[in-house]
Every structure is written in structure tokens, then in C-alpha cells.
């Protein structure tokens, strides 16, 4: 039996050999072999009764799965704009030079590959990278130098200095949610005492709305799901925290996981679910062992499993499913597809997951923070919760603050707090703009700093990135646009093609080659994407361009050529090869553009 055969049959024997486990198997194989060997694909295909091509198409969909071996050390630099602002690109260059590798190309000796990845959720302690899937924070030249030494010496990451992997919670401001500790099991007991309907009414009265950003009323979602008929009901915790600049779930899963599980369990009690899932983004792999341990402790304490707290028929358990580098899987129907082991392509809606979700059965999908809030409401009641926030946005919100400020980190605020107040608290000065709610969100200029964080004003999933006056905002726009192009699933025309067209036009602006005509084109493409894309990713992807064009027109106009039209074809750039061949670089070998 070959090594691969042994490994794969080990995987298949420890878990169910259903096709919905495929992505989980692939993640394990990737972690072990730094790629998915052909032999493993054949074995999985045979055992799961799935065509080989289906497995290949899944591998090519998820950024963390590879067909070609990455090497002993698979390194991916987090490439959010906040990482770049902290100097990630020069550190990346430095590491590539020291190791003698090209970006994205495995070194021929099979030792190492250096690449980039979307925001790894460590913006407050960046720049960061993943090595063999595990996050390293606070990169600097010294740390890069040491890592290169360890890599060249072939020291496994288990033996690397622990401080490389230290990631602090970094909570800077606490309020209701982070302050009021509940004892383990108390929310479930509250459910047992009050009963499902009373608890649902309490959550309804609290006004709790989904914390992922969309703000759907949690009680309504749970009620719809409970009342939908199906063979089984499911609870899913969306821990695919992929929105650039968001890292609050990292803290909740690190230090408040018991409350998350508690929230999921009361939801299960209310809707009648026996099975729950935490869909954990691949970047948070390092959190998994502790989460598994907690789940086991909860089973032993009869807070999970059969007859929870001795109540006959109250059966519920939670499995952790890993993501593999796909932002789109944060969209609830794509997440469900991914849970089923497939490519994360968003479904057509309706039907919504509350009626037809996981395995086409009624499913609640909620954000990590929503489950924490629900568990707190179960214990402390709706008035306690309503007391904070505004009429339409009750309670508090966790913000992940990063970028140009003295104290980045996690800030919990009652809804209704002004952006100005937040900037003051985190020590931001000379602020040019704030990007609220991530790449898909809103660019807020200083004249709008009076606005507030609330569903009715500036809604957010929690990302809050600050840019001071020295920053070139177009760099931010370019970074976000590149992010959306990379993360588009490719299903619908406007997102797949519009995103790339936008990228090309943005580059034309950046190199000083665009005209007012091109800006109109970008507006037109952005408008089309907003109106016709299949899912939220495509609808929000043009936001950074459209928002900055509207609120910061200067960053575009000062780069424009003063003419009505300029072809996409760059004559001067096209001459570069000829200049190289003839060894000329004089004035006559260039075509200069008049500004």
C-alpha cells in the first residue's frame, strides 16, 4: 500500500465517506502533501463514486487547494491593503530574494513556495502570512530573516519560536457583549426553563438583527426555519470571516467560543435541529484544535450530544467544516454548497436557506457574533439588550479597527456611535477616509464622519479601515478591485467579465493614461454589475470604485489626460520591446503624451 493510499484510506475510515466530506478530505490531503496528488484524486473518485473531473473542478475552485506540490513550507502573505500599508510588499520581496524564489513558483528543490492570499484577518497585528496554513503575525525584516533561516535549515514549523504564532485578542473597548460573562450552559438552561417560543419572543423583542451586515431579524429567520417542513433542520455558524479588514470572529472563536456554541445550541433547540456546523475559514485553521477540544468538553458536560442537560430528545451536535480560501463562501448559499463538499457557487434564491438550505432542508445560517448575542439575550433578557443601541439597531457591534491609528484592535460599541468618536478613541489623526464594512463597503470622507454605525445609517459586518492624508486612496481601490477579481466565482457575466474590465480601466487611470471617457465607462460597468450580478459579491464589487469616484473625484481627475478619448492600446508601451532590442532609450524612441 502506498503512502498516499494509506493516508486517504485513513481519512475515509475516520469519517463518513459521503461526497459532502470531499472538501474536508481535500483540505487534509493538501495540508499533508502540500498538494492533491493524482493518486489521491483517483482514490477519492473511486471511494466516493464521484467523477474525477468533479474533484479537479473543486480543487481549482478553492485557492488553498493545489494540483502541484508547493513544498515543505507553503507561504502565503496576507494581501489586504492594511498589510500593504504596513510594508508587506517589501517584506514579500525580501523573502523571495533571500529564498531565491519567484512569487507563486515552488522552488525546484521542493523546499518552499511563496505566494499571496486574500486578507488573513490579522490586520491589527500585521503584516501577516500563513505558513502551512498557520498564521504568523507582526512580520518585520528580522522575523523574515529568521523564518528564512528556519526554512533553509528545514526546521518543521512545530519547532519554530512560539512567539511567531502569537496572535492577541487585542480587545481595546468592551461593552455588553464582551463584558458580561455567562457561565457555561446558562443559555441552554434558560432555553430549558423558558421554552422555545418564549425565548424566540424574547429574541424578537430584543430587536436582534444579523451581525454579518445584512441585518435580517434573527428571530424571524429562526421562526421561518422552525416552521418550514423538512426531514431535518440544520444550524450553521458562518465563521468564514473573509471580508477584508474584519477579524472580530477571530476573537470570538478564540475567547468566546463557548458562547458561540451555546447560541447555536439554543437555536437548534428552537428550530429542532440535531446537527450544526461551524464553517471555519481556512485562514483560521490555527483556531481549530482549541475549538475541537471545547466541543469535546461540552459533550462530556452533556451540553452537546444526546439528551442535552438530561432533556429527553434534545439532541444536538456540532461539526467543524474548514473553508479553503474562497471569500464567496461567506455568502450563505455558497457556504451551504461548500458544506456539501461542492464548489461555492451561490444558489438562485428563492428558495432561501430557511426553507431549503443544507441538503435542501431548512437551515439557519448566522454570523458568529449573532450567536453570541442570542446566547446573551437568552440569559440577560431582551430589555438588557435593547438598552444599548438605537431604535432600529439594538445592542452593540464589534468593530475590527485597522489602518492608520495608534490603537488598532477590537472595539465594541453600542449601535449609533459616530465615526468621529471611533476615530478619536482609536487614536486616528489626519484621517483622509474610513472604509467601513470592508472592500464591499463604503468609503467615508471626513465631511461624513458625523455619520453613525447602524443598520439605518452605515451598516457594517465589522470592518473599519482607516486611511490618513498621506495615503493614495487609489492604492486601496486597486487592492480591493484585485481582491474581487480574484474572488469572483465566475458564474455570472457581469461579475466575471465586468470585474476584469474595471481592473484594466483602473490600471489605465493609475498609469496616467485614462481620460474622462474611461471614468464614464467605469461608472457604466459598475452600475451594470450592481444591477445585474447574481449575488452580493458581484453587486458590491464595484463599490470601492463607485464610492471613491463620487466622494474623492480628485484621486481620479488629477491623473486624467486632457483629451476626449485615449485608446486602451498604449503606443509608447508597445515600443518597449523595440527599444530594448535596439538599445535605445532616447527622446525620439518615445511617444510622449501631453497632459
Amino acid at each position: 500500500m502506498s503512502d498516499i493510499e494509506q493516508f486517504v484510506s485513513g481519512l475515509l475510515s475516520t469519517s463518513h465517506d459521503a461526497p459532502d466530506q470531499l472538501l474536508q478530505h481535500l483540505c487534509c490531503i493538501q495540508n499533508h502533501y502540500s498538494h492533491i496528488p493524482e493518486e489521491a484524486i483517483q482514490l477519492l473518485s473511486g471511494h466516493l463514486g464521484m467523477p474525477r473531473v468533479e474533484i479537479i473542478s473543486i480543487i481549482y475552485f478553492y485557492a488553498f487547494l493545489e494540483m502541484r506540490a508547493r513544498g515543505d513550507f507553503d507561504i502565503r502573505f496576507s494581501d489586504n491593503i492594511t498589510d500593504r500599508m504596513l510594508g508587506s510588499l517589501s517584506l514579500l520581496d525580501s523573502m523571495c530574494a533571500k529564498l531565491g524564489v519567484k512569487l507563486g513558483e515552488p522552488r525546484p528543490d521542493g523546499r518552499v513556495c511563496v505566494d499571496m492570499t486574500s486578507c488573513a484577518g490579522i490586520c491589527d497585528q500585521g503584516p501577516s502570512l500563513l505558513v502551512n496554513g498557520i498564521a504568523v503575525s507582526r512580520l518585520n525584516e528580522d522575523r523574515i530573516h529568521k523564518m528564512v533561516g528556519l526554512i533553509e535549515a528545514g526546521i518543521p514549523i512545530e519547532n519554530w519560536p512560539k512567539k511567531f504564532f502569537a496572535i492577541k485578542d487585542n480587545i481595546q473597548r468592551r461593552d455588553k457583549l464582551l463584558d458580561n460573562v455567562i457561565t457555561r450552559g446558562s443559555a441552554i438552561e434558560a432555553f430549558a426553563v423558558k421554552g422555545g417560543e418564549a425565548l424566540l419572543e424574547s429574541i424578537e423583542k430584543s430587536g436582534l438583527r444579523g451581525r454579518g451586515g445584512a441585518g435580517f431579524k434573527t428571530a424571524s429567520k429562526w421562526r421561518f426555519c422552525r416552521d418550514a417542513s423538512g426531514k431535518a433542520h440544520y444550524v450553521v455558524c458562518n465563521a468564514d470571516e473573509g471580508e477584508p479588514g474584519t477579524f472580530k470572529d477571530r476573537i470570538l472563536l478564540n475567547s468566546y467560543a463557548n458562547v458561540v456554541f451555546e447560541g447555536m445550541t439554543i437555536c437548534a433547540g428552537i428550530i429542532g435541529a440535531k446537527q450544526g456546523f461551524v464553517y471555519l475559514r481556512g485562514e483560521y485553521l490555527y483556531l481549530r484544535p482549541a475549538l475541537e477540544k471545547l466541543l469535546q468538553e461540552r459533550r462530556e458536560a452533556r451540553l452537546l450530544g444526546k439528551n442535552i442537560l438530561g432533556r429527553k430528545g434534545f439532541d444536538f451536535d456540532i461539526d467543524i467544516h474548514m473553508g479553503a480560501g474562497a471569500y464567496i463562501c461567506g455568502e450563505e448559499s455558497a457556504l451551504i454548497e461548500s458544506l456539501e463538499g461542492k464548489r461555492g457557487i451561490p444558489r438562485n434564491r428563492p428558495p432561501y436557506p430557511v426553507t431549503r438550505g443544507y441538503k435542501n432542508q431548512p437551515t439557519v445560517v448566522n454570523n458568529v457574533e449573532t450567536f453570541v448575542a442570542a446566547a446573551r439575550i437568552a440569559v440577560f433578557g431582551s430589555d438588557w439588550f435593547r438598552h444599548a443601541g438605537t431604535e432600529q439597531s439594538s445592542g452593540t457591534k464589534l468593530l475590527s479597527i485597522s489602518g492608520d491609528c495608534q490603537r488598532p484592535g477590537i472595539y465594541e460599541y453600542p449601535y449609533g456611535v459616530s465615526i468621529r468618536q471611533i476615530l478619536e478613541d482609536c487614536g486616528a489623526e489626519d484621517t483622509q477616509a474610513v472604509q467601513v464594512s470592508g472592500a464591499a463597503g463604503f468609503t467615508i470622507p471626513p465631511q461624513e464622519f458625523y455619520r453613525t454605525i447602524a443598520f439605518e445609517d452605515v451598516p457594517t459586518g465589522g470592518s473599519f479601515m482607516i486611511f490618513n492624508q498621506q495615503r493614495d486612496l487609489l492604492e486601496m481601490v486597486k487592492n480591493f478591485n484585485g481582491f474581487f477579481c480574484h474572488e469572483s466565482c465566475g458564474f455570472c457575466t457581469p461579475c466575471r467579465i465586468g470585474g476584469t474590465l474595471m481592473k484594466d480601466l483602473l490600471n489605465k487611470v493609475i498609469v496616467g493614461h485614462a481620460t474622462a471617457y474611461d471614468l464614464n465607462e467605469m461608472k457604466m460597468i459598475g452600475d451594470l454589475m450592481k444591477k445585474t450580478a447574481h449575488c452580493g459579491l458581484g453587486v458590491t464589487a464595484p463599490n470601492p470604485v463607485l464610492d471613491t469616484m463620487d466622494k474623492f473625484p480628485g484621486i481620479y481627475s488629477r491623473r486624467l489626460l486632457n483629451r476626449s478619448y485615449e485608446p486602451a492600446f498604449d503606443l509608447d508601451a508597445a515600443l518597449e520591446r523595440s527599444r530594448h532590442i535596439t538599445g535605445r532609450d532616447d527622446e525620439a524612441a518615445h511617444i510622449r503624451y501631453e497632459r
Partner: protein
Amino acid sequence: MSTEKTFRLDGKTIPFEDGDTVMDAALRAGEYIPHLCHNPDYEPHGSCRICVVDVNGKHQCSCTLPASEGMDVDNSSEAIVDKRRTLLQMLFVEGNHTCPACEKSGACQLQAVAYSNGMLSPHFTHFFPRRSIDASHPDIVFYFNRCILCGLCVRVSHDVDKKSVFSISGRGRSARIVFNSPSGKAVDTELSATDKAVSVCPTGAILPKHLGYEIPVGQRLYDCQPISVVGDTAKYHSTKKHFMRDDSDE
């Protein structure tokens, strides 16, 4: 007493039944809504977005939108046609569509929908992707330059032919059709020339071998009448006039 349920499409009253999409009801009533990834014989997909309509101020895809009582659907205002035209232009620049040199010209849904929506130029900068041709199969040739990723071949092969021949691999701009064979070639799959999947392509990406210009250009389906009158390939096949080899043709 039950009355017939209806909605309005460009001011006309369209009856519908429970479970109908706007597209289903419109096509049944003889109203044409442009579409590419949708084929009324099969399950809707909603990827090409060409069938976008305006319903009470909101843009929706009619092939996946459940019809409901009292909807006011705009299928033909300049604003909607403009959106469709732009989407079509995007599809044209994403691949390499050289209509004059394509066997499917005149019988091509993509080309016909583009004409009927007044698309006169590709407008955007061409991507000029490097895509392959797979001519390995004895009866069928694949020109991936012309693929618009509608997924019809994938869906029909899987759902109707009950085979696993194709899949869509990759994501974003690198999404592409792949074959289920270790060699990655069409010839090593279980695909056969009589498969339904071979005949559903709305472009010239899947063509029969050994046949060329059986119907002269100029006399083909969409050469004679616009697609808005003739309808899509589903109807075309049912009239048994399609230009692909089909021994059951008269």
C-alpha cells in the same frame, strides 16, 4: 371561485400558473425574453443575466424569478435593452468570437441575440484569451474560444444524458469547461454525437465534424428572421432543421 393569475409584461397581460418563472409564462404566451444560458427544455440556471428585466424598479433574471400576481415587468425599455447589450458585449470580448469564420454563423444564438439587441460593436477592449480547440473526438469538435460558460452542455449531459462528461473548473476569469478523462481530452470521455448535450450549445463552441455549411450562410434560421420571432435553439431543434447531423431528420 378562482380567477386566472396574471402579471404584466410590457403592458401585456400574461397568465401564469403556480411554479412558473416569468420566463416560463412569457414564452408560453408567445412573448420573447432574450436569453442564452436558459433553454426552456431544461432547468433554469441564471448565469448569463441576458434575460434581465425590470420588475417594479428592481433588476431581476426572468428565468429564475418566480412569477407572481400583479408584477409589472419591463422587458423592452431602452434601459433594459442597454443592459443586455452591455452584457453581450462583455461576452464577446471575453472570448474570441470571429463570426465570419464560424460554422455556426447565422444559426448562433449568441450572434442572433446580439443582433436583435442592436449590438453593433464589441465596445470594450478584447481580452484575446488563449484558449484551446479539442478536436480529439471523432464526431465532435470543441472551440473553447467561443464558450460563454452558460453551462448548458454540463447540465444537460449530467441531467438528461446521465453521463459525466464535463465540469466547470476554476473560478472567476479562469473558469473553464473541462472533460472527465485522465487525458483531459473529449475523446476519452463517454460523450457521443447523439448526446443531447452536443446540440444545446447557444454558440459555436460545440460543433459536429464532417459537416460544413450544409445550409448556406444567408439561408440559416436567424438569417431569415430575428431570434425574437423564431425563438431559441430549443424550438429550432423541434422543427428538425438544425444544421447538426441528426439521422432522424427528414
